[in-house]
């Protein structure tokens, strides 16, 4: 019997050690994708390519996975933090107070029961949607049935101060509470659950990305990206080559950082 148990036990220990190593492994620099004259604010992956919101130039830029520019779509009004699903690219227009749905070249407006004032970010998860409503200091959230609003101007937990990005996960909503210099986590009724990043003295938490194990935040004025575990413990700080980062995204295990002033995407791996 012991002859069977010993190898199984050994294998179990190895798996445990491997998974521990994997979770502690830091992100390291891989490459830089130069965007020439484009200043990226938001990014998403849509139909196999990377899409960038170039707010300064009122356009969207489409890149292939190698970083080659495939297309530039002009004529948007300050496009910001994008999101997408299989069919649709969602573009919050800060200048027009609209959410544009781009579906194979066809434009339509997202129907919202309330008015926005400078939508800075959108997140789409299954049939749920959330919008960071910058000047109204709130999040508008569609739970699949109806829109609700949460957050108000302020500094206390649950309050927001110029939110710029949002992400819906299975059970929570993460908000880049930009000028409160923190990330806030809410449940899907709008109840404040958690504050992340208050001890790091961030200066404008402008963009977030949440994976199943980590929370990534762009600390805009401090030229860095902070990476936390889901409990809010700081795991890593990245600053190499960063110049006013604004958004993040993981595509096929690589972390893409929208480097606004650097006019490029910085790519990290682990």
């Amino acid at each position: 019997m012991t002859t069977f148990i010993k190898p199984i036990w050994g294998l179990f220990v190895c798996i445990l050690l491997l998974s521990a190593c994997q979770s502690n492994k830091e992100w390291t620099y891989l490459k830089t994708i130069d965007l020439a004259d484009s200043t990226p604010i938001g990014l998403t992956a849509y139909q196999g390519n990377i899409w960038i919101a170039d707010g300064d130039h009122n356009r969207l830029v489409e890149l292939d996975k190698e970083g080659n520019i495939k297309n530039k779509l002009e004529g948007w009004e300050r496009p910001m933090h994008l999101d997408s699903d299989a069919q649709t690219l969602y573009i919050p227009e800060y200048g027009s107070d609209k959410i544009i749905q781009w579906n194979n070249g066809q434009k339509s407006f997202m129907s919202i029961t309330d008015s926005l004032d400078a939508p800075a970010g959108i997140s789409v998860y299954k049939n749920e949607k959330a919008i960071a409503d910058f000047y109204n200091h709130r999040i508008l959230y569609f739970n699949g049935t109806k829109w609700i609003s949460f957050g108000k101007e302020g500094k206390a937990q649950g309050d927001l101060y110029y939110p710029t990005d949002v992400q819906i996960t299975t059970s929570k909503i993460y908000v880049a509470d930009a000028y409160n210099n923190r990330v806030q986590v809410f449940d899907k009724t709008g109840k404040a659950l958690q504050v992340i990043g208050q001890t790091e003295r961030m200066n404008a938490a402008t963009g977030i990305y949440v994976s199943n194990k980590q929370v990534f935040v762009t600390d805009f004025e401090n030229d860095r990206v902070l990476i936390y575990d889901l409990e809010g413990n700081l795991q890593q700080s990245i600053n190499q080559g960063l110049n006013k980062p604004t958004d993040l995204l993981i595509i096929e295990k690589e972390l893409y950082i929208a480097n606004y002033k650097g006019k490029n995407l910085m790519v990290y791996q682990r």
Partner: protein
Amino acid sequence: MKYLIIILSIFALFLGVQPQANAQTNNDKDQFSVKVDGLGCPFCAYGLEKKFKELKGIKKVAIEMETGMMTFEYPTDKSLSIERVAQQVEAAGYTPVSVEVARTDGTIESSQSEVIEEHIEESALVEARFFVAGNCGMCKARIEKAANGVAGVTVAEWDKESKELFVTFDSSLVQQEEIEAAIAKSGHDTTTSKAEEETYKNLPGCCQYERVP
């Protein structure tokens, strides 16, 4: 041949003048160009553009982030002054460097005045460094403008990392406390002078620094 040249010249002159005359009759809007300092954060800069768009009568506002240049049109009959535009930019929490307007009658007005060199005795010049609260490039522009606006100040440079302002000033004309008071009036706390709560609240989001206790 001589007559042909004269006729063609008159015809060409007519063609050249005609569009301009049409343009003058059709264009009833003054063209404003405002140079704004310290536009580092896109969220706030686009906000300035957006808030200007919401003002009645203002059309086609655009900000060039690289140059900090904001341009817009405004109906001529409303006689919008360059001082009013500068005030509007400042009220939104930004720092106007210059305002220029091309009126429909062809006149150009500019806020930039001739710089008069002050002759200051070397012995009266004093250097000082002191703390000024702020966050970003826009804060830097506002702080330095406030300090430079005080008569007697010759140099004002604020460092975002250390939060220190380096100033040189003519001590026979002004004292450090007066410079600090002017900076606080613009919305930024120093160790000895505090900004009014209302002024602080009117700063753009990215400039909302941690208040000095």
